[in-house]
């Protein structure tokens, strides 16, 4: 079926020409997708003097690991920033997934008057639809007033509040589809709602939780606007640090590429490994709804 259909775009050529054209387009797309990553990795290993020449090839002729040594050395400031990123991402993921699962289950099971459950669910969705920059400045003032400016908490709370909508909508769909009989038979056996939720429902929703955790972790690891607004020094994360390469330090490609690789590579590897969960998360809602 699919093979037949994909001929449609190229009908007009002979069968072999058609196939070659399709394969050619896909290969070109793969090249355009991967080449920038290749350049990033190459530049992160390129000795400093090679950057100045426009004759140097796309891949360095000699490899150096000095930039990575600087990024990853435990005494350096960059290592502290890397650690910040790990802490913020881990905390965001744990808090967003935990509170998100609870609220989704609550909304799916609780019978509130005036369809209040649906209304609360929809208000979560609103967060996805307004410009985040509207919030950034007042959030900055709010955190200053709370005395939380430049703390992990300020960055983590911002990230949790922005990822909760994704988690809630993923989990809500799962809990609503969850077979009621399973919970009912446990109820007959005298299981309270807490026992049912933690020992029956939750273990069966692990795939959905993995999807939610993956999306949350990626978001937090990559987020720039709020991290730069409320965590400028002590709670600085990698995306904020790398954005500084353009403004105050001039262009320092080697260290910049090494840091870029440290930001990009873990996400790439995880995305490739957990591809199925990722796609499910990215397409949830859009296709069904």
């Amino acid at each position: 079926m699919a093979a037949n259909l994909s001929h449609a775009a190229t009908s007009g050529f002979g069968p072999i020409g058609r196939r070659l054209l399709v394969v050619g387009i896909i290969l070109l797309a793969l090249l355009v997708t991967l080449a920038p990553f290749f350049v990033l990795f190459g530049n992160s290993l390129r000795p400093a003097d090679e950057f100045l020449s426009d004759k140097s090839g796309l891949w360095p002729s000699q490899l150096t690991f000095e930039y990575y040594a600087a990024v990853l050395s435990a005494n350096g400031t960059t290592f502290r920033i890397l650690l910040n990123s790990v802490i913020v991402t881990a905390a965001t993921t744990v808090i967003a997934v935990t509170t998100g699962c609870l609220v989704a289950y609550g909304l799916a099971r609780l019978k509130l008057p005036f369809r209040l459950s649906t209304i609360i669910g929809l208000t979560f969705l609103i967060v996805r639809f307004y410009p985040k920059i509207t919030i950034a400045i007042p959030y900055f003032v709010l955190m200053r007033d709370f005395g939380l400016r430049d703390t992990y908490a300020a960055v983590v709370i911002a990230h949790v509040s922005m990822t909760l909508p994704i988690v809630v909508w993923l989990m809500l769909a799962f809990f609503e589809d969850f077979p009621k009989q399973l919970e009912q038979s446990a109820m007959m056996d005298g299981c309270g709602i807490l026992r049912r939720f933690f020992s029956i429902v939750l273990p069966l929703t692990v795939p959905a939780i993995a999807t939610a955790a993956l999306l949350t972790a990626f978001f937090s690891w990559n987020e720039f606007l709020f991290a730069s607004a409320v965590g400028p020094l002590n709670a600085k994360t990698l995306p904020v640090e790398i954005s500084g390469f353009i403004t105050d330090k001039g262009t320092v490609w080697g260290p910049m590429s090494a840091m870029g690789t440290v930001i990009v590579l873990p996400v790439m590897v995880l995305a490739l490994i957990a591809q199925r969960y990722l796609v499910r998360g990215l397409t949830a809602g859009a296709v069904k709804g």
Partner: protein
Amino acid sequence: MWVSRTVWGFADWLESKIGERGILIAFIVPAVAIVVVAQFYPLLYSFYISLVDWTLSRSTEPGDFVGLANYTKMASDSVLIQAVGRTIWFGLASTAAQIVLGFILAYLTMGETLALRVARTILILPMVIAPVAVGTIWRMMLSARVGPVNQVLRNLGIPTPDWLGDPTLAMVSIVIIDVWEWTPFVFVIFAAALSSLPSEVLKAAEVDGATPWQILRMVILPMLAPVGLLVVMFRLLDALLTLDIVFTTTFGGPGFATHTLSFWIYQQGLRYFNISYAAAISWASLIGCMLLVAGLLVWRARISRWQKEA
């Protein structure tokens, strides 16, 4: 295990105290509290800020109430007016390119062979990495003298432009980068939508002797229209508010050539600390975005109703 006995014992005790409803309500409270405190309260607070006179570098407390003065100021801000035009142009151009490319790639990579599955996985990568990293990578790619893009062009004997340094070309470069980063989003949604099309309908069309072109035009594209509109909505919204790429490639330059709406709000608010004015611009753009969402959703509802009738 005494630990688990204690935990479950506590759970049962709690439930006997506050009941099933009480527990479910307790489940809802933390997440709602976080979103209210960190999103909705700042949202309303920013509206309040937009109505007072407050420059953070001069005063740590909000100043006098000035009504809509911050909003009327926008009309005489020529940087802003140009930024709005530029942002709309950018949003439409990059969204259109992404829809076309994303659909073509989804359509051509349909199928379950291993090679196609691997290709689909790789094609997603640009959208999952950090936008600031995308900007960083492309600043190197497009560097005028030593960038790989110009190296390749030079070897092919094609003129090598200063992609990010030329005032007219810089915004085009931002479009190219945005297309590289977000075509995967359109692609992944369309790929999922294509694989969930009812195969009976496609088979029936084929049995009736429809050519692949006809099936594409008359069966597949109409069935994908509602999803397509949703994708357009997401992409337009995000494109209109793009900040990270501008921030890490051109930083608004050269001159004001790549000042987009979000970049100007960021500059006003977090660089010059004119937070009242920044809040006014962001509320105006929020209202614009809401109107856009509403318009597209109404349009989508009309299309699906029309499809049901047909």
